[in-house]
């Protein structure tokens, strides 16, 4: 009995060793296939990283992305500035519904082309009904815009002051920065989509499939929390072009709008155009009854 037990144990011992070796080998192979490799697997989240660690992480990412897309990549980690709180204005009396903002955003922010992701959605609504999101149509495609009886309302992330999405994230992958931008750490996101359920504005998008971004269309000027290429299975959304606004520039949608319907700036600066809009114009927000207090203000200039 003892002999067979010993033999049995030894056989099992070898089996266990082989099993552990095979498991470790599989795990290693699995992790190297993951985005970022083994270092990516053990990487801490953005808010936990010390400045030196962050530099190392950014350097690794820049190298990885440059290898994948063939362009030298610059990932900035510019922090928010003191005394800056961003606000966005959209002039409903001017928007034509031309969708140039939608495609300029996709071009600037490295969004997947197929499966297609658009952060901005332009809702066409009948003027007679007023602002009525139930009757809104994002798939309008007439020959010419604007049509006479329709007005156009682009909707993207509203960067609310009381964001519901950040409340429900079970892992803390999304939070609001001091300058007002609601950001996502794509390496922390587990893809549960609770935030998408919580957002009243339908602003968040999910990477259902492997994102497809051709090399020619890759934008190498990136921010860690902004437009770096996302992996499959994470949530993304408008970041107010954080890679641009933290350097003092306007977001891409503001710059491309052919009729100047989009306004952006620092709400705390009394001379900024967004502050003047707040003081002088008729301003409203979407779904005010939910008390999310968005930073995205719709107004009528005339």
């Amino acid at each position, binding site marked *: 009995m003892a002999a067979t037990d010993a033999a049995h144990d030894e056989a099992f011992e070898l089996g266990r060793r082989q099993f552990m070796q095979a498991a470790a080998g599989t795990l290693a192979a699995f992790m190297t296939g993951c985005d970022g490799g083994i270092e990516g697997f053990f990487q801490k989240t953005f808010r936990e990283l010390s400045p030196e660690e962050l530099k190392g992480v950014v350097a690794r990412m820049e190298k990885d992305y440059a290898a994948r897309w063939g362009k030298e990549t610059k990932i900035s980690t510019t922090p928010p500035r003191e005394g800056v709180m961003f606000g966005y*204005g959209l002039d409903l009396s001017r928007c*034509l*519904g*031309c*969708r*140039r903002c*939608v*495609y*300029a955003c*996709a*071009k600037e922010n490295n969004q997947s*082309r*197929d*499966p*297609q992701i*658009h952060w901005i*959605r332009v809702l*066409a609504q009948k003027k007679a009904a007023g602002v009525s999101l*139930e*009757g809104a*149509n*994002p*798939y*309008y*495609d*007439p*020959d*010419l*815009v*604007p049509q006479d009886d329709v007005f156009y309302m682009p909707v993207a992330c509203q960067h609310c002051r009381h964001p519901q999405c950040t409340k429900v994230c079970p892992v803390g992958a999304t939070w609001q920065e001091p300058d007002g931008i609601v950001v996502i750490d794509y390496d922390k996101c587990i893809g549960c989509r609770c935030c998408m359920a919580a957002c009243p504005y339908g602003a968040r998008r999910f990477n*259902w*499939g492997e994102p497809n971004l*051709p090399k*020619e*269309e890759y934008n190498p000027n990136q921010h860690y929390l902004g437009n770096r290429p996302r992996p499959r299975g994470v949530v993304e959304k408008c970041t107010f072009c954080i890679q641009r*606004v933290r350097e*003092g*520039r*306007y977001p891409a949608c*503001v*710059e*491309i*709008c*052919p*009729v*100047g319907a*989009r*306004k*952006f*700036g*620092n709400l705390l*600066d009394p001379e*900024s*155009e967004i502050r*003047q*809009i707040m003081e*002088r*114009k008729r301003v409203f927000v979407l779904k005010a009854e939910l008390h999310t207090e968005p930073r995205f203000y719709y107004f009528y*200039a*005339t």
Partner: protein
Amino acid sequence: MQTESPPESGLSAHAGVYPLYVMLPIFALIGLMALSSELTADRKMFKLEEGSQAVVPHSPAEFEDILGGFDPFPPADAKGNYPTPPPPLSEDIFPCTQCHEDPEDDDPERRELEMEHTNIKLNHGDKSRWCLDCHSFENRDMLHLSGGELIPFTESQRLCGQCHGTIYRDWRLGIHGKRTGYWDGKKRYLLCVVCHWPHEPHFKPLKPLPPPVRPQFLRPQDRPAVDETQPAEEH
């Protein structure tokens, strides 16, 4: 052993547990009938049937001529100021005194022009004004304000601002007009005439870029072969 009878449940205490046995099947039957009628109804439930079929994903690269490189601004000068770009005058038309040397050769009467400048059909307050209400008669290289002051073409916003005062105020504050550049720096200004042709200022409608792909067509294998030129039926 004497066991206590179990306490009477509230339900059996009533004389009517039997109505429950009757109502439950009736409600279940009604529910099933409603469900089957909804499932078999050939009805467009969502207004989103309107508009494009939105099957094909379009990429920004297809619209590079629209999205790429509209920047009429020269870079900032040594002091960090952005010079306003010059007015977009037609080629060789300026200076006007090439032809209009002497005002005495011209006719200041209001009329329909037949010899020259026939390509300009004024559609901007044309019932109340004509060319010389903005263009100075004495010096064709200048415009004039209502008080008679002459201003160059590079300051034409003052002329527009006479009638469009609220827009002019909004333009000075940065609320009106296309914004590019830096939100925390000096504003870059475009003259009114860069966007609005003063003789017919109303913007022409333009073709919108394609709508987003509908969620049911996100995967390539789910996309039917459709003729994208035909819109979906209107609801």
